[in-house]
């Protein structure tokens, strides 16, 4: 079951990241670097400086949501994966993950703040 969940999650990410089409361009970029490597013999991984700063923004948004009890389940995982992507030089992937995490942090914060006071539903009243 756990395995399935993990698999499912990676599918989700693959789907969401893949859908944006970054994966394809990334692969092309990777192929280009591979090709260059052959010529220049120096493999320089891209540094993804801008993307790394976006991950910091996303993590701050996550922390802000957590401070009001509104953090979502997978946000921290996306941030971790984004860091790994930066390390691997996959800047597009890092950016997509950071964007997703940032949005989750913001939505989680708003969700919690909109319910700071007890909000009773229509189907039940004390």
């Amino acid at each position, binding site marked *: 079951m756990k395995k399935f969940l993990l698999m499912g999650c990676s599918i989700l990410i693959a789907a969401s990241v893949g859908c944006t089409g970054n994966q394809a361009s990334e692969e092309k970029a990777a192929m280009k670097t591979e090709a260059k490597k052959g010529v220049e013999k120096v493999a320089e991984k891209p540094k993804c400086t801008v993307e790394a700063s976006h991950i910091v923004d996303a993590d701050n948004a996550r922390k802000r949501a957590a401070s009001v*009890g509104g953090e*979502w389940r*997978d946000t921290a995982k996306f941030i971790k994966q984004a860091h790994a992507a930066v390390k691997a030089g996959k800047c597009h992937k890092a950016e997509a993950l950071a964007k997703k995490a940032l949005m989750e942090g913001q939505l989680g914060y708003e969700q919690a703040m909109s*319910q700071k006071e*007890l*909000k009773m*539903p229509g189907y*039940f009243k004390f």
Partner: protein
Amino acid sequence: MINETKGKKMNHISTKTIAGLLLLGLSSLVSASPESDAKAFKKYFTDRFPDVPYNDYINGAYTIDKSGRENWEAIEEFPPYEPFIDEGRAMWEKPFKNGKTFKTACFPDGPAIKHKYPMWDKEKKMVMTLPLALNNCLKANGEKPMKYKKGPINNIMAYLAYEARGKKINVVIPKDEPGALAAYEEGKKFYFQRRGQLNFSCASCHMQNAGLKLRSEILSPALGHPSGFPVYRSKWGTVGTLHRRFTGCNKQVRAKAFKAHGPEYRNLEYFLTAMSNGLEWNGPSARK
């Protein structure tokens, strides 16, 4: 001139009305007590399921899942949690390194103590749960505390639940302790707060949709929820505590779970258990 007096009069009236409204507001605050809350909570379910006898709400989804009930009753006859009770008894009786036991060191009324929790701890000014009290006892006696979700905690909780079977749920929110009511209110707010990417509250599933099927799973009513814990779940392949269940229910709506026996879940347990005051404790039990 005349207008001015009129104006003054009106001012006077309006302050009076405001005072009156304030009073009304205050009195409505007072009347919304945990006792009246529990009444309304119970009524919600007894109205929704008029054929279900009140005392049956200690059985989770099987309270209303007629087709699953027979299979469950067969399982309960040869309960899968029995070995856990035995292990727990051994833990209860085994002396610490300092020679004391749980009973002599911390719980003189034991082993039938589960029904006293969750309780308001007047000294610590917080809700005390039984697993937390057990760990505090271990630490105070130079022993290693237990992990909250997996392992030995489930054995001893199974044993202590078994010893308190049939006792009435009776959570007390002491009136002379403002912190206790505040903790209860926090737990209540948590219960109705929508959270996670899927945007559900506990109440969305266990009140609004109780008795309905989420895929092929019948959603259990919130009334009586803590009674059967800890539960042996086939899905877990072991016994698990109430806070492990809270964790699972938070995660499945894609919300980050809170710490077991941290303030959020302790207050939640306080509220949720108080809503079931009057029903019996019926742990441990078996679940799908």
